[in-house]
């Protein structure tokens, strides 16, 4: 029998270590090990050797946003599928059909995006 | 059909308004004709009612009764029934007749309205329906509806066909009277629910409530409650009747409204407040009236004197007449405060008389303004030469208004003061000042208007057309009729007044 709390303590330890390693390497040990000798040339932004021009925070393609929105919707819908999958056996036919309807709607959403050319790049 | 006479009287103008709605815009003559016929027919039916009226009976006559709205569980698990109850008694009959006469004459006097005439008649007829309804409704809710029905048409009648300041004045009218009707509704509902506590059934019928109030034990309907309700109602009446300090809307209204509308405002609309006073305040809450008699009398006297004083400094005839009317209505308050037969009778006489006189005076001033282009006293003068007939009528009306014996004003004032001297000798004495002041301002204004040299620009004005004789003569005739033969009115109202007075005693 696995204790509920113990597994989360274990996970917390992983979190702790996962944070401590970079912190130790970058902030604690780092200053002693590496040289610090900044010059203006070093600190310039790298643009394949030419002088950087313009603003780097350019307006990027709106497609990125659309994909992000699609992701949000689909990822969240998957959230419903996991509990359903776990308790599939106890739900019976109604649960199956219900989820098929749900998936059908999901497909409809995908078709919608497809038809509206959200999935095209350009 | 005869059983529904009152319904017919009330809704004929409304029907006519609907018909006018379908008349083509170009034919203004038809609209006017329909309006004339409708108001005349209503008047005729009112005459039929009058002819068949049983002078001896004390109760309501020509009653019609039907259940209209039934709100289940409205109050303490009981249904609130709003009835379509109509009826007339000696108290309301004169008002119905007054409405009939003045509305017909006002339509007659509206001939000058050319601008958007069709709409004018529609609004006018709606107003007339509301006025009739107020006087025949026996259900408080119904009364309130008709009262509200007068509001909107008046707003437009002033706002569209009024003088140069029509917009703000229309709004002012609306605000004042709107607030007044709100108070009235509050008082009505409070009374109805209180009566329901006593009787066990909710009814908005005036008679039921009156009975409940007079019969219920003082523990159930306390005098404090009655007094409170009365104060609310009285406040509403003060606003409706434009008594000081809520008077400012009336002179503005009279000044800005077209003369035919002024006629109906001065003649009928302004009398609704008095009707509420007689019918509801005195009829249902006599104890409270008794309790506040002094207050009422004081406010009455203040109005008599104050309005008369203000009238003296007015430069415009219409404003002067408005204040004069307020002064007259102050006498009504004084008479009612006396709470005796003579006082109340005087109050009713005064109300009717003031209605007829106001209608006449506003009609005449309207006719004069139409010709001379002004109603400013300073702008007029020496009218007896170019328009002797109109000037003559104006003189007669003014004399009637200041209480010349033989005319309705005199008998009314006599009755009211007879009643009030018994109870408030000092106040009444002060009140009589008003009569003197009335003589001063009316005669002064008459003198400035009709006598003296005629200004050059008024030389060519014409006198009254034949059609204009009709309103003037009819109204003057009625004024004189009441003055010389007061029984025509007192026979009608006395049985009802006795009912009221006995209730005061009991």
């Amino acid at each position, binding site marked *: 029998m696995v204790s509920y709390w113990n597994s989360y303590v274990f996970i917390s330890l992983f979190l702790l270590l996962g944070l401590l390693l970079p912190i130790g390497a970058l902030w604690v040990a780092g200053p002693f090990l590496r040289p610090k000798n900044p010059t203006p040339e070093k600190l310039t932004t790298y643009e394949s050797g030419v002088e950087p021009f313009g603003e780097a925070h350019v307006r990027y393609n709106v497609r990125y*946003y659309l994909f992000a929105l699609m992701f*949000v919707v689909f*990822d*969240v819908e998957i*959230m*419903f599928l996991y*509990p359903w999958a776990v308790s599939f056996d106890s739900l019976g036919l109604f649960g199956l059909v219900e989820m098929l309807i749900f998936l059908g709607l999901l497909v409809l959403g995908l078709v919608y995006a497809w038809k509206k050319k959200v999935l095209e790049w350009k | 059909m005869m059983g529904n006479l009152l319904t017919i009287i009330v809704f004929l103008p409304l029907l006519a308004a609907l018909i006018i709605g379908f008349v083509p815009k170009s034919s203004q003559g038809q609209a006017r004709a329909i309006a004339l016929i409708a108001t005349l027919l209503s008047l005729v039916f009112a005459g039929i009612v009058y002819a068949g009226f049983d002078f001896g009976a004390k109760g309501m006559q020509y009653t019609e009764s039907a259940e209209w709205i039934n709100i289940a569980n409205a109050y303490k698990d009981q249904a609130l029934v709003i009835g379509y109850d109509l009826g007339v008694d000696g108290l309301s009959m004169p008002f119905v007749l007054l409405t009939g006469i003045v509305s017909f004459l006002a339509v007659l006097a509206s001939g000058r309205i050319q601008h958007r005439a069709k709409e004018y008649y529609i609004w006018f007829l709606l107003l007339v329906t509301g006025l009739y309804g107020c006087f025949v409704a026996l259900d408080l809710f119904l009364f309130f509806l008709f009262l509200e029905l007068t509001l909107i048409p008046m707003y437009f009648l002033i706002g569209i066909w009024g003088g140069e300041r029509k917009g703000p004045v229309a709004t002012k009218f609306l605000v004042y009277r709107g607030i007044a009707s709100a108070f009235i509704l509050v008082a009505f509902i409070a009374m109805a629910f209180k009566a329901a506590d006593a009787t066990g059934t909710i009814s908005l019928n005036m008679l039921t409530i009156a009975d409940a109030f007079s019969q219920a034990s003082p523990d159930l309907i306390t005098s404090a409650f009655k007094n409170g309700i009365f104060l609310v109602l009285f406040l509403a009446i003060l606003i409706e009747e434009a008594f000081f300090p809520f008077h400012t809307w009336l002179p503005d209204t009279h000044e800005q409204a077209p003369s035919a509308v002024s006629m109906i405002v001065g003649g009928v609309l302004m009398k609704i407040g008095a009707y509420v006073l007689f019918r509801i305040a005195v009829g249902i809450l006599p104890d409270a009236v008794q309790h506040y008699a002094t207050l009422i009398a004081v406010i009455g006297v203040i109005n008599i004197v104050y309005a008369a004083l203000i009238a003296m400094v007015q430069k415009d005839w219409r404003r002067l007449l408005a204040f004069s009317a307020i002064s007259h209505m102050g006498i009504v308050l004084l008479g009612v405060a006396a709470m005796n037969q003579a006082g109340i009778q005087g109050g009713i006489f005064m109300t009717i008389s003031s209605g007829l006189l106001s209608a006449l005076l506003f009609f005449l001033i309207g006719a004069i303004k139409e010709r001379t282009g002004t109603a400013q006293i300073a702008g007029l003068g020496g009218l007896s030469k170019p328009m002797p007939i109109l000037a003559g009528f104006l003189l007669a009306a003014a004399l009637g208004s200041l209480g010349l014996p033989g005319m309705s004003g005199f008998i009314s004032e006599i009755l009211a003061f007879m009643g009030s001297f018994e109870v408030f000798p000092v106040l009444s004495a002060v009140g009589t000042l008003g009569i003197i002041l009335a003589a001063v301002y009316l005669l002064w204004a008459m003198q400035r208007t009709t006598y003296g040299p005629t200004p050059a620009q008024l030389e060519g004005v014409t006198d009254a057309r034949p059609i204009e004789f009709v309103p003037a003569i009819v109204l003057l005739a009625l004024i004189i009729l009441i003055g010389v033969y007061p029984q025509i009115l007192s026979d009608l109202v006395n049985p009802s007044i006795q009912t009221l007075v006995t209730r005061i005693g009991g």
Partner: protein
Amino acid sequence: MSVEQFITLGAILFCIGLYGALTKRNIIIVLVSVELMLNAVNINLLTFARFGLMPSMNGQIFTLFAMTIAAAEVAVGLAILISLYRNRNTSDVRDQDLMKW
């Protein structure tokens, strides 16, 4: 770990979110703050679902729905923001002043 601590955490997050939603100028930050508020609610629900007076599954189900709907809301919010940005070229709350009374 007691209920109070979780509830307090939820309350703090909720307040931070509310503060952000009401004061921040960038609409995206505002939307993020709203999400924070909703997540505070989720913490509350989950706490009650496990440690409440009467623990039950319903809280977890509620959380699932709350998350989904929050996501839908923010998706629509971003979509509207994009359309707004195309029209107005700004995502600053203070610039949203076409309509004033």
